[in-house]
């Protein structure tokens, strides 16, 4: 059963009934159940970081309370157990993405993971190579490639992008064939717009030409839960904190031979086989990329996050997110004076918008007065903003713990803010 709310402007606003037990889910995320400025919190900043379910909080506390020890080091029970847990979460992560355990490297976040790849490829890149980037990239998937290009003399080439911020796949394929890139670095979903990239076609084309394809999955890892063997990219990065996991944890998937061929980005203890004063022999991946004490509590807690997610079929989560997002998109689009930059199709659930010529900072500040948490600014995507011809925007980003009521409160608050500004 679907309720039709309004049908002016020829846009259907539908609220499909949801099978998802959203009440229980929201109960599992304690941060959501609070008031901000005397209003119930409407958290629409999951694109920046998601909230955490109780089990993640409890697992962290339990680790520090009962289990704390360093991993891969001590010959004692606490250390052995911490190591087992730590490696189990690696296996769990590999299962989540449909890959092998030894193809997962722990980092502190998606940014570090991209740096690890870009830096690790340095010895394989020459001045004759081309690296394709795209105008939608987060700075994290842009600046490391600029650095690599500077250091190697390789050429950077930006993928063509439609005026509205979507890719024309045919044009992209043509471009790739013309550039014959050594590397293609591309996001699975835009953090500013939420638009999902048509990766399968791009990856197939790039790989047929021998390119290494590096996918920024920071925004897609949770919303899309890709099977990376099917997606067939060579590298893929993610951040736990955008997947209802803890801060300070991220990871890199790499096709094993390519992964193992990277030069280590960070050196030190635990990544070496033998060390003399003047030289060292490194171990094989993933160990050689994990020098230093890792975020053990964080990784253990990330295991709890993945377990939490695995209680649902992914399709359930996705369907719920899409229903709430579609509702939000449609309602927002109806407000006079709103510029909406996110496409409604193929979107992970992000609304990128402005109101008339108001500054997004002012809008976000006022929305906060109503307890609505959004982000304002360039979203670490200055080239995309330039491409869209704007300085910045407001971004409301959804996750599966948002509901229709969040949308209603958001739209009501937005209208109240507009009344203040007008």
């Amino acid at each position, binding site marked *: 059963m679907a309720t039709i709310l309004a049908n002016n402007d020829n846009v259907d606003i539908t609220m499909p009934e949801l099978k998802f037990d959203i009440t229980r889910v929201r109960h599992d995320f304690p941060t959501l159940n609070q008031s901000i*400025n005397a209003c119930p919190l409407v958290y629409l900043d999951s694109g920046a970081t998601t909230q955490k379910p109780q089990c993640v909080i409890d697992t962290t506390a339990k680790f520090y309370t009962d289990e704390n020890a360093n991993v891969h080091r001590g010959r004692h029970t606490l250390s052995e157990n911490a190591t087992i847990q730590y490696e189990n979460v690696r296996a769990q992560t590999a299962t989540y993405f449909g890959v092998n355990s030894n193809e997962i490297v722990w980092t502190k976040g998606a940014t570090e993971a991209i740096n690890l790849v870009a830096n690790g490829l340095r010895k394989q890149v020459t001045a004759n190579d081309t690296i394709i980037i795209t105008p939608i990239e987060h700075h994290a998937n842009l600046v490391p490639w600029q650095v690599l290009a500077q250091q190697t003399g390789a050429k950077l080439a930006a993928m063509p992008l439609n005026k509205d911020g979507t890719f024309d796949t045919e044009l992209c394929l043509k471009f790739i064939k013309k550039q014959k890139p050594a590397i293609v670095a591309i996001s699975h979903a835009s953090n500013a717009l939420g638009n999902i990239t048509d990766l399968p076609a791009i990856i197939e084309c790039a790989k047929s030409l021998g390119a290494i394809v590096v996918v920024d999955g920071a925004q897609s890892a949770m919303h899309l839960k890709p099977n990376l063997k099917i997606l067939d990219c060579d590298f893929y990065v993610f951040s736990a904190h955008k997947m209802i996991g803890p801060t300070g944890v991220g990871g890199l998937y790499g096709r094993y031979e390519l992964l193992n061929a990277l030069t280590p980005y960070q050196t030190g203890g635990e990544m070496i086989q033998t060390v003399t004063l003047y030289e060292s022999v490194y171990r094989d991946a993933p160990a050689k990329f994990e020098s230093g004490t890792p975020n053990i509590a964080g990784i253990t807690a990330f295991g709890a996050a993945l377990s939490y997610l695995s209680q649902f079929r992914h399709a359930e989560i996705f369907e719920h997110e899409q229903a709430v997002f579609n509702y939000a998109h449609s309602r927002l689009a109806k407000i006079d004076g709103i510029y909406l930059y996110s496409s409604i199709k193929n979107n992970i659930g992000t609304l990128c918008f402005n109101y008339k010529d*108001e*500054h997004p*900072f*002012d809008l976000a*500040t*006022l929305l906060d*007065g109503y307890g609505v948490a959004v982000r*304002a*600014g*360039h979203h670490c995507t200055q080239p995309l903003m330039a491409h869209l011809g704007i*300085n*910045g925007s407001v971004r409301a980003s959804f996750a599966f713990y948002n509901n229709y009521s969040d949308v209603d409160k958001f739209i009501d608050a937005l209208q*109240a803010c507009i009344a*203040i*500004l007008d």
Partner: protein
Amino acid sequence: MTNTFNKVSESIRNASVWQQKYREIMLLGKTLPSLLTALKIDDALVPGCESKVWMYVEFDLTENVLVVAGDSDTRIVKGLLALILALYNGLTPEQVLQVNAYNEFEKLGLISHLSPSRGNGIKAMVEKIQTMAKQKLI
């Protein structure tokens, strides 16, 4: 010394709800003349702001008083800038050091705008003003 400021901020102080407070801040921003375009240069931008904030802090050498000028592309920050200008413009270095912008913003219920978050340039402006006043007195 904070006479101008008291007058300027009166309507903010008297606002009964936060919505009204922000309306008054934005109105105040409107009264602040825009910086000349020639002065809106990148070198004058406060680094790290999501909004654009241009800031000039100088001492008038003949009068030995502070001259502060600024502008922002956001209405709220511009209003807050107007408050800072009202607070500090025309003061001697000694007077500057006696003014505590944090206290004044706190009284107006605006302290969060002076947070270390990089979201606006008000804090940077206050810090620059205070540093310059201290240097003058050495």
